[in-house]
């Protein structure tokens, strides 16, 4: 386990380094930057000495590889350089924008999972056919509605027509609900699709028929067996959906005029503030890599038969011996505990 974590950690660092280098190469290929633009602007009236000082301050007078080495060393210490437009440290800008975005994305994820669960369960278990058909088309519909359209329509009706939610971010929870729900809709598209399919596949497994034959009720089987067995693919997707969450939050923050990392990056793109763009890319890549690592580590807790790096968890090993369930690496057969029980 320790060695596995160390290896995954090293991989994550490598990926971060590559992402940083890639964004540096992409952005340094740019012909101008905000500082040079400011110096060349005749209205700014900057003296040649002032210009030289300014360039030296941002390290823009040095050769490119030196800039790269310097910024990489800085980034590894958590120093992401300074914004070219406001001269504030990028780290401070990120730190002040992050809480709002974290609130938005985490509540958005909660909404997404809730919507996905409702749609998936209704698609499989709804007592009426029309409701099953209706919810079955939910994922395709969610995937076809761009975030900005959902957000604008929600704002238009909920806020301006019916006055249910504030139209600007006043820091209250009420102002957070609509943006988070908008974001949830985006994430719900892939989640509900996979969850619904997964429940259907699990329900057609032989052990579910056995449980039915033994007289277990539908609700009991769902809670005890189907839910857990069908949540693995959803867990995988949860890590991947984080990318959607970030993309969605950029647009959602713009629609609802919320300050946050998304607004920060859009503003930085408009002013060619490269260190800020790079900082946001690095931060979100780090979060993305970290979340997928957490998801990978969470697998054995959902399905004890999955091994982390060839060795089952201690508890799993003990349980496996007691029940003499065959532990198969990496390819779990859907075999519930109930069938093994007398």
């Amino acid at each position, binding site marked *: 386990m320790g060695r596995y974590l160390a290896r995954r950690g090293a991989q994550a660092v490598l990926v971060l380094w*590559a992402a940083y280098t890639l964004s540096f190469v992409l952005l340094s290929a740019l012909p101008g930057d905000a500082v040079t633009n400011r110096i060349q602007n005749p209205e700014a009236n900057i003296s040649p000495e002032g210009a030289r000082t300014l360039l030296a301050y941002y390290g823009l007078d040095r050769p490119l590889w030196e800039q790269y080495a310097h910024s990489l060393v800085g980034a590894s210490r958590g120093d992401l350089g300074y914004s070219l437009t406001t001269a504030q440290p990028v780290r401070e800008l990120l730190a002040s924008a992050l809480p709002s975005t974290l609130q938005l994305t985490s509540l958005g994820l909660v909404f997404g999972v809730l919507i996905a669960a409702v749609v998936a369960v209704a698609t499989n278990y709804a007592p009426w056919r029309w409701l099953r058909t209706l919810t079955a088309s939910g994922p395709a519909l969610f995937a076809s509605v761009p975030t*900005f359209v959902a957000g604008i329509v929600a704002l238009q009706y909920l806020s301006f027509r019916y006055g249910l939610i504030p139209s600007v971010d006043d820091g209250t929870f009420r102002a957070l609900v609509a943006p988070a729900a908008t974001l949830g809709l985006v994430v719900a598209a892939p989640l509900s699709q996979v969850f619904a399919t997964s429940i259907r596949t699990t329900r057609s497994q032989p052990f579910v028929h056995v449980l039915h034959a033994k007289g277990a009720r539908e609700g009991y089987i769902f809670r005890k067996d189907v839910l857990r067995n069908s949540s693995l693919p959803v867990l995988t997707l949860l890590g991947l959906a984080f990318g959607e969450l970030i993309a969605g939050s950029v647009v959602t923050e713009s629609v609802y005029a919320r300050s946050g990392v998304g607004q920060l990056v859009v503003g930085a793109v408009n002013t060619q503030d490269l260190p800020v*763009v790079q900082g946001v890319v690095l931060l979100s890549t780090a979060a993305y890599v970290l979340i997928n690592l957490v998801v990978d580590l969470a697998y054995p807790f959902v399905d004890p038969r999955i091994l982390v790096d060839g060795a089952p968890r201690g508890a799993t090993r003990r349980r496996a011996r007691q029940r003499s369930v065959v532990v198969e690496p990496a390819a779990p057969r859907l075999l519930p505990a109930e069938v093994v029980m007398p």
Partner: protein
Amino acid sequence: MTTVVDTGSVTRPGTDPAPALEQPAARERPLPVRALAWLGGHWTLVLAVAVVALVLAWAVVPGAFASHDPLAVDPAGKLRAPSAEHWFGTDQLGRDLYSRVVHGARASLSGSAIAVAVGAVVGSLLGALAGWFGGVLDAAIGRGIDVLLSIPGFLLAITIVVLLGFGIVQAAVAVGLTMTATFARLIRSEVLRARTSTYVEAATTSGASTWDILRRHVVPNSIAPTLSLVTVQLGIAIIWIASLSFLGLGAQPPDPEWGRLVSDGRNYIASRGWLTLWPGLTVVAVVLATNHISHHLTRRDAS
């Protein structure tokens, strides 16, 4: 069936082969009826194809559908509600919104087409190289794909937009480059599968050149999965390009583009909801139709 009728007139009297041959045909309904029945059973698909066809027509010959000049400013007719004269109303400069949506189809659709083309061509090339030659090249391209996929896609697209500048083509290329990783991964696995297959082994032993094997065995086998990925990515590309334009990073004013139209109308959502509603609904309808067609193709592919 026509041949049966033709030969029926020259067959010897007494023997009449026509009824015997026509019997199964009689039980089967005639072709037009069957076609109609099939269309009736797939009416959602018909609707989706119709939507896409209409929008494609908008993009190719916008003049035939638009009722007004999309750039004609009319100070006297600002912010009019939808009417018989202006189907979708007019915007803050008095421009006809319906005409702007029709003309916007060209930017949105050609942008998505460029994006998917860039993604498919660059991605397939990289994937084919990695899968076919293996070794160091495969490892290098594989790591590159991993890095690309570990940066949240939309942010990567935004970063590339910084590099390329604002504009619909730039946004399209940015989105396309972001998509290369997905295509590369698919093609790599397809090529790998073909390379290890017995028929490629047979072709190698019988002395076919690498180029011939790629052209005659590997490429045809990879086309079907690539096409179905293309249709899937098309819907995503439309959304992403519209989103980039909505953020002001794609199409620039005064050129109409769907995402741009929504963002232009957002200042008036309190009182002039149609300015955002119609362009928004257009995007939803087109993406829904594209995804539906893609779903149908993928399902047919799988069976």
